[in-house]
Each structure stands twice: as structure tokens, then as C-alpha cells.
């Protein structure tokens, strides 16, 4: 029988990887998740605690997937504290995925923190299609840099370049991802820029790239309840991030006046990003 991806599937945590002192990756077996597209997410049930949207992280074993979580509030911390052998519920994967244009020869990926998760899945596709790939990883400081080695491995079969920026300069290039990006697009031609991370960063990337006529695809985050397009808690303009997104292109992003500026809180009220 065809599995209904909307039905909760209980999975057992089989491996846990410490990425940084506040970020962990949890691997589990789940065929549907393992086949997720880059940009798709799961709704992850942490029994008795929360249900959270989480991008589907890659995992090297067949039929396996993972989630990479940063410990933050109640929900994410409950997940972060799970141990091997404990259960999670997952449904999905949901949403659309990054698209690789037919003639793309050279692309740039810009992300930070857990925003790297969908970009790594994308990297694997780029790797297998031998597209020149530049990945910019941004972090505040050295101890918060993760996925660098994994990223290099994901891209090993294609021409690639992995650049790390830290705001305090404790590792890699000092500064923000957007500065590194600006430098690179000044000297090389990129067909597309893919990004996932803080919305302010993504907005800046859209503006810079648009000025240089480079198309952008960005994976957005919004508060989510249903994940299936009925509750509107994830809405931005007339779009639903869970169903029309998470990935939007330059044209759509430019039409969304809330992008980078406003989001809706749990009650549905519009709030400004700080």
C-alpha cells in the first residue's frame, strides 16, 4: 500500500552526532525521509513536548535520514536532549525543493547554522551533476562552525570551494557571509544562488544578487502547525511556506513585502523582525 506521508511514523534514534556544544544531529531509519528533496522538511514530534518543523538532514546509510537541531527553547531543547534508542514521530517530508536550472554550470550556496541542512542535501545533487559549487558557511565564531568537513565530502566529485566566515574572525574569513558573497560575485559568474538561514541575511542576499541579475532561491522558515497547507500559520503574503515553499525564487521573494521584515506569531499577528 502507498504510505500516507501525513500519518505519524514512529522512528528510533540510532545515532547522535555532536556538531557544536549546542547543535546535535539525530539519525533514524525512515525511507520516506531518506528520499526527501533539498528544502523539504519533516514535522518532528517530540513525545510529550512539542512538534517542530525540521529540515531533513542527509545521512550516509541507505534508508536513513536525520535532523540537526540547535538547542534553543523548550521544543528544540527537548529534542536536543533525546538519547539513542528513544522514539520520535515524523510526518512528511513536506514542501517543495531547490531547483537546479537546466544550463547551470556554476552555483553558489550561502548558509549558516542549521540553515546548512537543506544546502547539504542540495550539494549532493550538485555533486552528482558535476556543477561547480561554491559554499559559504557563516557563523558568529569558530565554535559554532559545523558541517564544514561534511560539506567538502558532499562535493568531492565536482569543482568546489568551501568558504567559512566568522563574524569575530576566529576562523576563516572575518565578516558576514554577504561580504564574502559580494566579493565572489564581483569576480566570478554564478548561475544561481541558493540560501537558507536567518531571514535578514537572505533578504540581503536577494538584494545583492538582484543587483547583479543573479537568480536566488531561498528556503524560508515560518511558524508552522499543520505543515499541510490548512492553518495559515506559516503564511507570508499569499503564500504558504509549508506548501508553496519552503523554497521561493527571486521573483516571488520580491513580490512578498513581508520578506525579511515581518512574520506572524503563534496567534497569527504580524510582527516585525528585530
Amino acid at each position: 500500500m502507498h504510505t500516507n506521508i501525513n500519518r505519524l511514523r514512529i522512528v528510533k534514534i540510532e545515532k547522535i552526532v555532536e556538531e557544536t556544544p549546542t547543535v546535535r544531529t539525530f539519525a533514524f531509519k525512515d525511507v520516506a525521509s531518506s528520499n526527501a528533496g533539498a528544502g523539504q522538511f519533516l514535522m518532528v514530534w517530540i513525545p510529550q513536548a512539542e512538534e517542530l518543523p525540521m529540515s531533513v538532514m542527509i545521512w550516509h546509510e541507505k534508508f536513513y535520514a536525520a535532523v540537526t537541531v540547535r538547542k534553543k527553547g523548550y521544543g528544540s531543547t527537548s529534542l536536543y536532549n533525546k538519547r539513542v534508542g528513544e522514539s520520535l514521530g515524523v510526518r512528511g517530508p513536506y514542501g517543495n525543493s531547490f531547483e537546479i536550472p537546466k544550463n547551470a554550470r556554476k552555483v553558489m550556496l550561502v548558509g549558516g547554522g542549521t540553515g546548512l541542512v537543506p544546502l547539504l542535501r542540495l550539494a549532493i545533487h550538485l555533486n552528482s551533476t558535476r556543477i561547480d559549487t561554491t559554499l559559504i558557511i557563516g557563523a558568529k565564531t569558530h565554535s559554532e562552525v559545523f558541517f564544514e568537513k561534511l560539506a567538502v565530502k558532499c562535493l568531492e566529485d565536482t569543482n568546489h570551494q568551501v568558504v567559512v566566515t566568522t563574524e569575530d574572525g576566529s576562523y576563516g574569513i572575518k565578516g558576514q557571509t554577504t561580504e564574502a558573497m559580494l566579493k565572489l560575485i564581483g569576480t566570478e559568474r554564478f548561475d544561481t544562488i541558493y540560501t537558507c538561514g536567518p531571514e535578514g541575511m537572505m533578504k540581503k542576499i536577494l538584494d545583492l544578487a538582484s543587483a547583479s541579475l543573479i537568480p536566488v532561491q531561498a528556503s524560508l522558515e515560518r511558524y508552522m502547525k499543520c505543515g499541510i497547507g490548512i492553518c495559515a500559520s506559516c503564511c507570508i503574503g499569499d503564500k504558504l511556506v509549508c506548501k508553496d515553499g519552503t523554497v521561493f525564487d527571486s521573483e516571488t521573494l520580491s513580490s512578498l513585502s513581508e520578506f525579511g521584515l515581518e512574520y506572524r506569531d503563534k496567534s497569527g499577528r504580524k510582527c516585525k523582525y528585530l
Partner: protein
Amino acid sequence: MFAEDALELRREQSAERNTLSVNFGGMCLRNPTILASGFLGISMDLFRRLYKLNAGAIVSKSISCSPIEGYRNPTIVSLDYSSYLNAVGLANPGADAFSEEIRENDNLPIMVSLVGSSEKEFPILVKKFDRLNIIGYEINLSCPHVAKMGIEVGDDPELVYRIVKATRLHTTKPIFVKVGVGNTDVLSVASVAKDAGADGITAINTLRAMAIDIDTGIPVLANKIGGLSGKPIKPLAIRCVYEITKKVGIPVMACGGIFDWEDAVEAMLAGASAVQLGSVLATEGLSSFHAICTGIQAYLKRKNAKNVMEIIGLAHKY
């Protein structure tokens, strides 16, 4: 395209519009497919999108005097057979934010769904919305998972009377009362609502229900108990529509498990003046409004009916 063709096309389109247009409870809609409350109901941008996609009218998320954050997730659980269990806890932006949201509405047929716990709150809510461009109100007396709001209110016919009456005194716009199947007879609630001056009934809301994960033994909804919607509840909705329209004699919007044009026609034969679409949007997406309209239209053609209102309540004769 030649001018004549354009004219012909416009004639056809307006014929279509006439075939599907309905007129009930003081409202006149271009077609009888309506967005159910709680589905996508908080954003003016989304309302515009839904209207372009053929929604005949739009009912907002239920709005309370103050904003409500709602329950912790999981708030919405998918069960089999296109059914859903939800306990969002009436999360909504509150009357101020929502009246701001729809302030610039000019031509969209929006009904505002109101929720409150006493008859005092409804006049306050009505005052926030009555001067805006809205076509009416739906009073939600039947949310099955928030104590002291919704169903606990709807289960008390006297309170229903007072709430509808209080609302009636403060607006001349159509008032629909949304009833649920739970602890009180829907027929008596519907007739009390009618007596208090309601223009129509929406039947039905979700039903109190529950799902437990057998692996962990834990109830899946954070709130444990929630409301069941979707395909499974259609036969209950059809029954309520039939009984209310036949015995109470008041216009009814059918809600509950309407997924395709067959369901819509069944509901209208049972007596519904219109159908509300909810859970179907998760399964079939936003094109449901258009698909159902097209299906009804073809049915009417086969049955030689000029307008969809001709089929309303046909099952009553049997």
C-alpha cells in the same frame, strides 16, 4: 480573439455565474462553495488568492476579543481517510489585529467568525467589524476542545439564546450560528438560535475525538483531545443539515467532510444552501473550489436545472 467571441465568452461566464449563484439568509453569493472557519482564515492576501480560485465566500478563523496563542504543538494530526484531529485552541490574532487585516477589503465576500465565552463579548466583537466591508457573521458555538468557549457554550441553549440575541441587537448583517454534534441536540440549539434572530446555521463543527500513539502510549495531540474533521464526518453533517432544514426551517451551510461535487450535491439535496470546504484543502489543495463548482454545474446540466438553488432540499420530498 474576435470581439464577438469575447462577448460570447462573457455571456457564457455570466450564465455560469447565474447557474451557481445562491441567495440565502440575507447573503448573495456567486457560488455555494465557502471556505470553512479555521482554514487559512487569518490573512487578507490569502483571501484574495482564494477568491481568485473561485471561493464563493470566505469565513475567517474564529476571532476573539483578545489574541489567543493556542495550544502547544502537535495541534493538527492526520488520521486515515483524509481526516484530521485538531486542537489548535482557537489560536487567533484577536479582534484588533484582524479588523486591521481586513480593513481594506472592498469586494471580497468575507464572513467573520466570532468566538467568545459570554454574551458580553459578542457586541464588543461586532462593534469592531460591523463598519467593515463584510457580508456577515458566523458565531462559533461548537469548538470541541476549548473549555468555556465553543461547545460548552453551544451545549447550553439558554446561553446560545442570549449570545445570539445580544449579537442581533448590534448588527443588521446576517448572523449564522455554527453548531456541533456533541452533548446537546443540534435541533434544539438551531431552533433556539432561530428564535433569537439568527439568519442561518452552519452544521457541523468537528467532533470531540482522540488518537493515541500505540508505540509510546501517548495521546498525540498536545491537548490530548481534539476535534475530528474530514471525510468521516460527512454522514453526520448530512443528517444535521437534513434535520435542521426540515424541522427548524432555517437556511443552513453544510460543513464537514465535503470533498467533491458529489458531496456538495448530497448536502444541497439534504437542504444546504451552500457548502463549506475545510479538510479537503489539505488533500486536494486550493483548486477544490473550482473543481466542485465545475462538478455541480455539470450535474445541474444533466438534471436540466437552471440554477443550483433548484436542488436545495429535494430530498425532503421523500
